[in-house]
């Protein structure tokens, strides 16, 4: 109940933000942070809960983005349906990646997800309808939705809603029997299966949901930039961030990726503006190394150990 009120309050705040925040940059940067909350939360469903480390976040994100672009160009599909279409296509990709877990575990699964990213990027580079390698400018709709006067502010609200839905999904999974099954898979897949856990079904569900959420995060991307091209949509940065944020925040709980995304996403925005955009990549790398070595259970682990004084997650 508390969660529901919190979620509605956040959406309400985002909807009302144009009344009291005029600064355009706030929405521009906020959109990116929200987008990372979705990506990190989605990554954590498969990577954190079930233990299958996906390096292909960029592929899911771009599949969402390009599905939206293709349908927008073809039939001027409205944004809400673009997002649903992006989520559906990326969810299907997630299902296929889930099938890989039948044969591939650990690092081999991760390598396969990188390979998928490279293959799909090559395909899109040669798909001229959506601009191929040189990209495609996107004209935003001329009519503003609802009371909005600025399209970026509208996208900010849309991404807030997606983020809230993503976090609610992760929370639902984690706190119920599905989450316990996924944890059992992460701890020991053989023992999970012998405890009656339908491991393949759960992994397929986790991979599909995770992929769909990543696709939903990617769908508004072209509208946000008014442009799309493969190397930024498939960027390895998405994969690195989607993995670093949950690890830094803590993978065991749904709030972990949210903490990691807000922290790392904000730091990166600040560093990009004040120092340089190359520097923000370094920040992610250094923080990831520090946390993996010093606090493998992330900020949540530190909190549990030093504030709540307990070691059981």
């Amino acid at each position, binding site marked *: 109940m508390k969660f529901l009120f919190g979620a509605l309050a956040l959406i309400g705040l985002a909807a009302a933000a144009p009344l009291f925040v005029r600064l355009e940059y706030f929405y521009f940067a906020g959109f990116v942070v929200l987008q990372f909350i979705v990506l990190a939360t989605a990554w954590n469903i498969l990577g954190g809960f079930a233990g299958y480390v996906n390096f292909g976040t960029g592929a899911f994100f771009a599949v969402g983005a390009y599905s939206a672009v293709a349908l927008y160009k073809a039939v001027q599909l409205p944004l809400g349906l673009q997002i649903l279409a992006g989520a559906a296509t990326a969810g299907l990709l997630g299902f296929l990646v889930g099938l890989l877990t039948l044969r591939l575990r650990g690092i081999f699964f991760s390598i396969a997800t990188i390979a998928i990213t490279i293959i799909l990027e090559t395909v899109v580079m040669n798909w001229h309808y959506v601009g191929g390698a040189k990209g495609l400018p996107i004209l935003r709709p001329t009519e503003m939705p609802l009371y909005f006067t600025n399209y970026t502010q509208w996208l900010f609200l849309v991404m807030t809603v997606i983020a809230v839905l993503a976090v609610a999904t992760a929370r639902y999974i984690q706190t119920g029997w599905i989450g*316990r099954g996924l944890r059992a898979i992460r701890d020991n897949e053989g*023992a999970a*299966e012998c*405890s*009656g*856990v*339908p491991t393949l079904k759960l992994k397929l569900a986790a991979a599909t949901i995770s992929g769909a959420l990543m696709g939903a995060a990617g769908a508004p991307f072209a509208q946000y930039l008014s442009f799309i091209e493969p190397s930024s949509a498939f960027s390895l940065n998405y994969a690195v961030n989607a993995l670093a944020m949950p690890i830094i925040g803590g993978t065991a709980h749904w709030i972990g990726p949210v903490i990691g995304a807000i922290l790392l996403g904000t730091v990166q925005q600040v560093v990009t503006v004040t120092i340089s955009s190359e520097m923000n990549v370094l920040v992610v790398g250094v923080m990831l190394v520090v946390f993996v070595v010093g606090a493998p259970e992330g900020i949540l682990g530190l909190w549990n150990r030093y504030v709540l004084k307990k070691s*059981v997650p």
Partner: protein
Amino acid sequence: MSQPDALLKIGSLSKHFGGFTALDQVSVDVGRGERFGLIGPNGSGKTTLINCISGALQNDQGSILFDGAEISRMPAYKRTRLGIARSFQIPRPFGSMSVLENLIVPLEYVAHSGSLHLSDPRGEAMEILKGMGLADKADTLSSSLSQVELRKMELARAMAARPRLLISDEAMAGLSSNEVSEVLEILFKLNASGITIIMIEHIMQAVMKFSQRILCLDAGRIICEGSPEKVVANPDVQRAYLGA
């Protein structure tokens, strides 16, 4: 050989790994409520056989009937739901969970697979832990248990699946003689409650004391089957074990 009222009927079971024959035409029946011992030297196919029964591996040929139903193409989790539970030779705890939570996994997924909302999974898990003498460890992280506690937890977790057939894969390996008697006592108790038990064991005293019938495998074939006395007296068994 054939049991009139067999719970498990294995017929001409074979399993190959590449050119290596791990199981060769193995046929055996295990009766309801029976205490059945499975012995054989290392590499003789004991674990392969129970992996085929529990579904961790699929047999190449032959049939496995459990309570009259063919299960040899069924995924492992469905076999567990039908009533086949096992412990592992090397314990495989869900290390990030407490002992109690380890039991809640099968309780949620098996015992209540029809309606996943249990009334009181914690209470049920606690009952099982009490029976195993692990109640005081309920909230301990399972990865920090001692070896004997891990073995007991493996059995407790198998019991949480509410099995009709329990396969204990070397549950006593590496334990002291006191601990062996403790685990043995638990297994006797479970059997007395009506559960059929297949025990794989290298500790001969334990398996002799426990089993009503013993099957000895060597190089994937059955070399002897019968009462414990008959099996130890068998020259082929002695040869397989002692290399005489």
